[in-house]
């Protein structure tokens, strides 16, 4: 009995000893497990159904009733601490792996992306559209007319009879004596009036290409672009013209713009005027662009000549109108600093490309 007891005591203490050793071994092993596969193998080895702890538990069958809870308690404690250690290690490994994954998936965000080709609106078109939008906002509509015009609409209906010296202001490409390339967009004044009379009000703008018999150089082009404006209604006055043009100038050139009208001459308006705006480069201080006057000429305008209204079919007393006309190249040159009018028709992509840099 005594001997058996002694042996037995010895066995319990050995079991506990062995368990402790196993625990130490397991924890030491765990510290080396750097990936999930190795971790799983460790778990199976120590905590699995056929693992060391389960084996230890099963071997308790040789222990006495009293001894079992003692050893069982120890085994459970070891299991708990191994499981905890495992979880800690596992989450560390996972975290590390996730970090590694993140690092591996990181892209060089500074590497250029697949940018599509960008197209640029032609600078003249850009100016036309901006001005169109301003006048659409005023309730104007847009008319376009033929490039090949009759002498009648290009000249006569605009109070420029044959032999009129003012015809020399515009050197003309003729097809034959009665047919020509329009020298201005003004024929659409006459055409629109004839088409609409006696309807009122008439409020139109006419953008379009015009032709002059000029040699091409930095400031002349045999083809260029104009924008015409025409308003006809009861009691239209020159102050109305000034009002519309001032608002237009502020929209196009900036809120602080001012305008100035100077007397001038156009056969189809009377009184006639040139409109200046404050130099957009120096703001009126005086610079080489404005020839030190502080002002830049932008457009010609005036009250529609009674002969033009008459020929257009508007005979009613008190019906008056105003008209204006401006060169798109000139305005584009001012706005964008283009210095040679030929560049608009040369279409150098290096120039056009620059227009992708500003908002369309």
């Amino acid at each position: 009995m005594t001997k058996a007891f002694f042996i037995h005591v010895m066995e319990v203490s050995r079991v506990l000893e062995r368990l402790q050793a196993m625990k130490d071994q397991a924890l030491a092993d765990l510290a080396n497990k750097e990936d999930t596969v190795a971790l799983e193998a460790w778990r199976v080895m120590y905590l699995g159904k056929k693992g060391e702890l389960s084996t230890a538990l099963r071997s308790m069958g040789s222990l006495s009733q009293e001894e079992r809870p003692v050893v069982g308690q120890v085994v459970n404690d070891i299991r708990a601490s191994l499981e905890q250690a495992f979880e800690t290690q596992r989450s560390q490994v996972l975290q590390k792996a996730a970090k590694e994954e993140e690092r591996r998936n990181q892209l060089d965000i500074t590497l250029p992306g697949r940018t599509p080709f960008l197209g640029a609106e032609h600078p003249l078109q850009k100016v036309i559209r901006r001005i169109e939008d301003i006048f659409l906002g005023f309730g104007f509509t847009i008319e376009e007319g033929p490039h090949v015009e009759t002498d009648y609409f290009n000249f006569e209906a605009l109070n420029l009879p044959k032999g009129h010296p003012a015809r020399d202001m515009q050197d003309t490409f003729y097809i034959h004596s009665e047919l020509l390339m329009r020298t201005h967009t003004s024929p659409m004044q006459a055409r629109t009036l004839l088409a609409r009379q006696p309807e009122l009000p008439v409020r139109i703008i006419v953008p379009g290409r015009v032709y002059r018999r000029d040699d091409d150089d930095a400031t002349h082009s045999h083809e260029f672009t104009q924008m015409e404006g025409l308003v006809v209604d009861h009691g239209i006055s020159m102050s109305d013209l000034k009002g519309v043009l001032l608002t237009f100038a502020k929209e196009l050139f900036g809120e602080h713009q001012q305008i100035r009208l100077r007397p001038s001459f156009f056969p189809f308006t009377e009184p006639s005027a040139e409109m200046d705006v404050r130099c957009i480069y120096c703001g009126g201080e005086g610079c080489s662009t404005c020839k030190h006057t502080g002002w830049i000429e932008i457009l010609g305008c005036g009250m529609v000549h009674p002969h033009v209204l008459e020929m257009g079919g508007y005979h009613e007393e008190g019906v008056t109108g105003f008209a204006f006309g401006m060169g798109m190249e000139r305005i584009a040159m001012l706005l964008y600093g283009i210095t040679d009018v030929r560049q608009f028709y040369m279409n150098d992509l290096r120039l056009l490309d620059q227009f992708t840099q500003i908002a369309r």
Partner: protein
Amino acid sequence: MKITWNWLGEYVDLAGLTAEKVATDLTNAGIPVEWMQPLSGQVSDVVVGHVLAVEAHPNADRLRVCTVDVAKGDLLTIVCGAKNVAPEQKVPVAVDGAMLPDGKIKRSKLRGVESQGMICSASELGLDAKLLPKEQTQGIFVLPQDAPVGVSIVSYLGLDDMVMELELTPNRSDCLSLRGVAYEVAALYDRSVHMPDAIVKEPSGIGKLPLSVEVATERCSLYTAQVVSDLKLAASPLWMQMRLLAVGTRPINNLVDITNYVMYEWGQPLHAFDYDAIVDHTIVVRQAHATEKVTTLDGELREVPSSSILIADLHKALGLAGVMGGLNSEVTEHTRAVVIESAVFDPVTTRQTARQLALRSEASLRFEKGIDEDVTFQALARAAGLMETFAKGKVASGCIAKGTTISEQRQVKQVVVFVKHIQNLLGYAITQSEMLAVCKRLGFTVRIVSDEEFHVFVPSRRQDITIEADMAEEFARLVGYERIPVSVMRGQLTAGVLKPAQHLKRTLRNFLLDRGLHEVWTYSLTAPKVLDNVLIGEGHPAQKMGMLLNPLSEDRVGLRTLVLPSLLEVAEYNSNRGQKNIRIFEFATVFLPKQVPMLDQPVEVPHITGLLCGNAEPDGPHGDNRMIDFYDVSGLVHAVLREAGVAHGQISFARSKEPYYQVGQCAEIYSKNILVGSFGKINARVTERYDLQESFYFDLDFSVVQKLITSDLRVKELPKTPGAERDLALVVDRDLPVQQLLDAVNSSAGRELENVSVFDVYTGDKVGADRKSVALHLVFRADDRTLTDLEIAARVDTVLLLVKEKFGAHLRF
């Protein structure tokens, strides 16, 4: 038109005014002063000197040592290099410390002899050398013998003057004279104009010379002439020469200078004929005969247009009326008497003659804009008077006047003005008294009818004023345009909206910009030779080109019928500058004449055209670059039409036969049998000529596109039943257009076929040579039920049966 400040001051009081102020005020009143500058640069301490002696320079062959009296202190010793210096001359002398436009003069030693000043040439004084007579540019400026010694050259020559260049509008031809500008200045400052006395003189009795004038054309409304005899041809007085120089006219001799001087003074062009060159002393003003020739003063023999007016005698032409005199009646040193002509010629005729002969003169410039008939006599009298004074002449005939305006009583032009009309037109309450004050300043007389109405009598010098609106401008400009307030236009509301075609244009422009195409603008004017470059031969409709009557360069002689050459030029230009990806489009107009030569307005057709070459995507580090190909352009054109709202099903293709495309790689696009445009690869022979890589072109007729747009939409209800998808790979002949296969599927699959699309085309060993496999994706759906596999299989079988029958197609396994 140039004027000088001092000259102007002869006719209107300029006291209290500066040239700067007048220039500004004239500009603001509609007579723009383009520039203003002193007649010469800074000149001081230059005086009239008297050359007493000229000796050779001891140490230099080319230099002379002159002794000069400047009426101040001792005689000066001046070393001079000019060959023409001689004793007894009066010359301009720059004394020690003098300023000349080119710098300061100091006493200095020249080859060992001290020079105490400098004898000046005309150009050293800052005068315009190109207008000076030759003898005055090749040495020192020799002054007239009566030049007063010691007097400042600045005051003697009138150099302390300002020259102003007026940039006149065509209506203000009245300001092509000092008189006209004087009236304008008088109006600005409420002053009066004083013109020199010019009363027609009667012949002085001695050496009376006969002259008769016949006017045989309606295009000369007034012709006046007078003979002046006993003339002594010489240089005109220096002050007159200086003034002519200042306004840009070369002094010639006293007679010619006087006619020019009076023209600048009065605005009436004059001409002086050698009296003895006029056969029978009879002047005939007539139309030119057919093929008549005249040698003009400049020595050119000119064939005169038959519409021209000639001045002639009974045998020959003496000059081109209003444009230039003839060489045969020129004033020469042998001239003893002249006929002075002061006439009014028809503006249109003068303009035509001057234009047709490309011979614009100061005279024609004035006649073609209309001159003041009221001063014709006065200008004649003034010239005769000046010839008496400065050429020792004697008036030798009465003033002979002929023409239609002699017989008719000319009416003074009257303009009726209603105060209210002017106020309404200008937009502010300018009063009647303000208006009357402007009339007075302008020198216009008025008759006041009531508080509301008055009549203005417009002098004939202001031919530009004929109606009330003209007076409105006079009031506005003299009261000041800045008085016009700013008002808001009133009246009925109008919607400022784009028309559908304009809206579509914007949409399509944005669409193409978004697809990375740059918008370009090219010229409409071109030449037929560019059609050769794109292989367009005789008989092609594009050869029917409208041509200009008066082209300026051989590259711009006609109106383009095709946009392609313009885009090729842009591509070539950019390709030559190293661009390899060229993607451009243009909204361009082509001109299709109804007949050639073009008699009336052509059909102007707007086109949307584009040219693409280079990579399909921009270069980048992602290694997926490929070149643009046919299907990129096909897809783009399709998308443009889709964007325009052209229904997909309406579009069909046919092979294009245009010579500028590569055979087999180009298409015409139709919608409901209407040709919309074409696209394809540009013929390699064309791209070679323009030194371009493989390029593609598309060209859509916008006038057709805009007719095809759909803008109304009623949405379809979304399907409630599931669709069934089937893929079929059909092996067919390689040449079979896929469209035919699709059409067959569409026609045979039954109404439950919702959509069929191509998702792959395979050619290669696995299907055999001359065959291809076309993979189709079919979607079936019924609105009211879920289709069963059996139903779908039945429909697919029908399809397979048909395509087998039609195209020998079989399923690829």
